[in-house]
């Protein structure tokens, strides 16, 4: 029997959310950057596939941090790099 495993339900995987276009604009304006200056995540990343994000989406990642308690991070979903 094959069991479906949801990686996002594992406790070490931080929360990933897809930003709306408005939220992306706010983010880019805040740091005065173009979308390509964001950190990246590959489209075939397991989490990306699981939450149904596609190339061009920006993910907001909320993770537990050793130094700050909770920290926020953003990643742009990109096509797999060579």
């Amino acid at each position, binding site marked *: 029997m094959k069991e479906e495993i949801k990686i996002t339900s594992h406790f070490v995987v931080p929360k990933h959310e897809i930003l709306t276009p408005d939220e992306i604009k706010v983010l880019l304006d805040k*740091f*005065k*950057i173009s979308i*390509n*200056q*964001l*950190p990246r995540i590959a489209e075939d990343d397991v989490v990306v596939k699981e939450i149904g994000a596609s190339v061009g989406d920006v993910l907001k990642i909320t993770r537990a*941090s*050793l*130094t*700050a*308690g909770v*920290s*926020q*991070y*953003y990643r742009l979903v990109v096509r797999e790099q*060579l």
Partner: protein
Amino acid sequence: MADMKEVQSIEFGVLSPKMILKMSTVRIARAELYDPDGYPIDGGVMDPRMGVIDPGLRCRTCGGSVGDCGGHFGYLELARPIVHVLYAKFVYKLLKVICRKCGKLLTGIREKTSLKEVMKTANKKCQGCGEEQGEIKFEKPYSFWEDKAPLNPMSIRERFEKTPDEDLELIRVRIRPEWLIITILPVPPVTVRPSITLETGERSEDDLTHKLVDIVRINQRLKENIDIGAPDFIIEDLWELLQYHVSTFFDNELTGVPHARHRSGRGLKTLVQRLKTKEGRFRSNLAGKRVNFCARTVISPDNNIDIDEVGVPEIIAKELTIPSRVTDFNIAMVKEVVKNGPNVWPGANYAIRPDGRKKKITEESRNEIAEEIVNGWIVERHLQNGDIVLFNRQPSLHRMSIMAHRVKVMPYRTFRLNLCVSPPYNADFDGDEMNLHVPQTEEAQAEAMLLMQVQNQVRSPRFGGPIIAPKNDHISGLFLLTRKETIMTKEEAAQILAYAGIDAELPDKEKIAGKEVFSLLLPKTLDIEFQSTWHKGKAEKEEDSNVVIKDGKLVKGVIDKSAVGSEEGAIIDKIDKVSTPQEVSDFINKVSRLGTAMLDTRGFTVGISDNDLSDEAKKLVSKAIKKAEEDVADLIDQYNKGKLEGLPDRSLNASLEVYIMQRLAKAVNECGEIVSSHVPENDTIFMARTGARGSLVNVTQTAACIGQETVLGQRIHRGYLNRTLPHFKKGDLSPISHGFVGTSFKAGLTPFEFFWDSLNGREGLMDKSLRTRHSGYMERRLVNALQDLKVKYDMTVRDLTNSIVQFVPGEDGIDPAKSNWGKFDVDNFVNMEVSKDD
């Protein structure tokens, strides 16, 4: 400034034979270097048309002299083509995707893709000509086979020549593949392989030249043999030899072939060896460069200079200079130093006129030049007191390994530094040497002063606490001063303060406590409470067990490592939080001098008799050890009878080991307790218990018992079959036979015990050297990965393309060098804000 353009792209490629011919000036055809008269032979490997290396001569190609002429390439026509070893793997990949007959790409893909992709899907049969493809095999470093038959470079080249350009474009290969099979070998200019003339007049040639001579010689022999129609096997052998020589000319550390060697047996340093490794061109000459205005010598400690000073020997101060532009403000000083000349400190070595002419100041010319000097001249004056210099000790593992100090010129030949700055440099004085650099411009000096001066480095970004702090004797002295027993007359107190160079008002009393003397150095507003090292781990509370400082007065407790020591000193930490960097460094200077002043008046002596145990204590120690040995014998007995109960997840055997180790460790702990309760208070114990130097473990091992020696954390098991040494019975599990040392260093070790201690000592040595190498390499990788990262003004961490790496530095935005042990100190912040309102 020159017109600057941004580099759009760089393309690396391979030289075509045509290009090689075009860039060459000479055809090399002769293996001899010089004629009998010692002149280089035309057409030889040292042909003078390839550049000049002898000063005075002019280049026969471009007419330039040494320095102007960068040299010119020659070329060598190879009698047979050979594979470029450094591209052999690429050649292999290409062979696998190119048809053996028509040279077309073995793929149906007709759009741009990658070589990797085509290799995955390469056809067995060519769709162009229908030819069945053989199996290509590659053996390092440069041999190829097709269906078990050797494939020689000539046929590979023929195959590659047929490949159409369009096919190469598909797999993004921008060169002609046949260029990877060398037919014309470029001969590098003599300027990159200069020969040196020894004192004997003998010429010594560069390794590259030696290799080139080999290549030319074999090439000639091959050519002759082909011309006379020699048998195939001879030609094959020579061809192979030519391949070997050209390959080792590129890289002399190829696996699978012997390295080319000198007659002496030393391996030749060829092209790849010139570039590779720490000593290679990249890391040694491009990534790192030698600098001027620096000095290096042995260091020694000096308690009488400040922590932000460095003692510079006069000899060095006279060699290192700073260019001073002459103005109204300094003309008097400059004239004075020029008059002193180059040999009297503070003097000057050179004077530069406004037109740029540089004049050496000599004993004869010094007065004349001093007269001549007006505003606008630049004088290279000696290093003087107060100049800002950078001081460094390798390995430079963190930013405090290079700090800015103020110069203090001193006699003798060593750099002097205050003991309190030895922790950040990780320096001791057993022969350590340090480097000193002199910033030459005002900007550089200002920058060094603001960012790198010792005062600004007191708090380490590694753990967010003070790293520059008193140690050793300072701590012993402060402890002795601040004990409640220390009460002195006003005269004695004044004497100590004067000795320490401290100007402070003593309370007007007959008898003054040491605590009161210490309190003179504290800021008047300081309030702090903490536990002293002296009382750490002690259950019962004594009067002095907690340190209490109120309104800048030491009310209770002794001052020791946890008060002022490196990495934990609570007082230094607190002062650093509430005062300016200058006040912190003043405190460290004064408090450390006060410590040594105390020792200088009281005296401080340690000796082996400090570790003497009373007869009673000795009895207790041997009883504790004997009891432990009996208990262990019991355990072994139970084990042998099969009555021993194992630990979960461990074999019975391993469980026994654990039990034995535990029991013996307990015995050693007991010894420690016996020692600390029976050894009378003396200076050795003071040092151990205040954290000044050594520990109670050291005292215990010297006085009572050394304990279990381990290898890899286990009792010692290695040696003979079922026993460690032939002196024991097989299967002996007793403590003595497996590394337990029940005697003390003072009592002396038995031969067995000495052997166990040596095993353990060897492991420690190995560990240390392995660890330093390992961490050095980790450091290097980390530096390479992080070197371009920068915290921008918007508090984002960016890489060199300005892309974001972190949205908040370190996720919490805290500068560890300004943190409270890595965290934000809320209480201190609130207190500072509140006190601002008063």
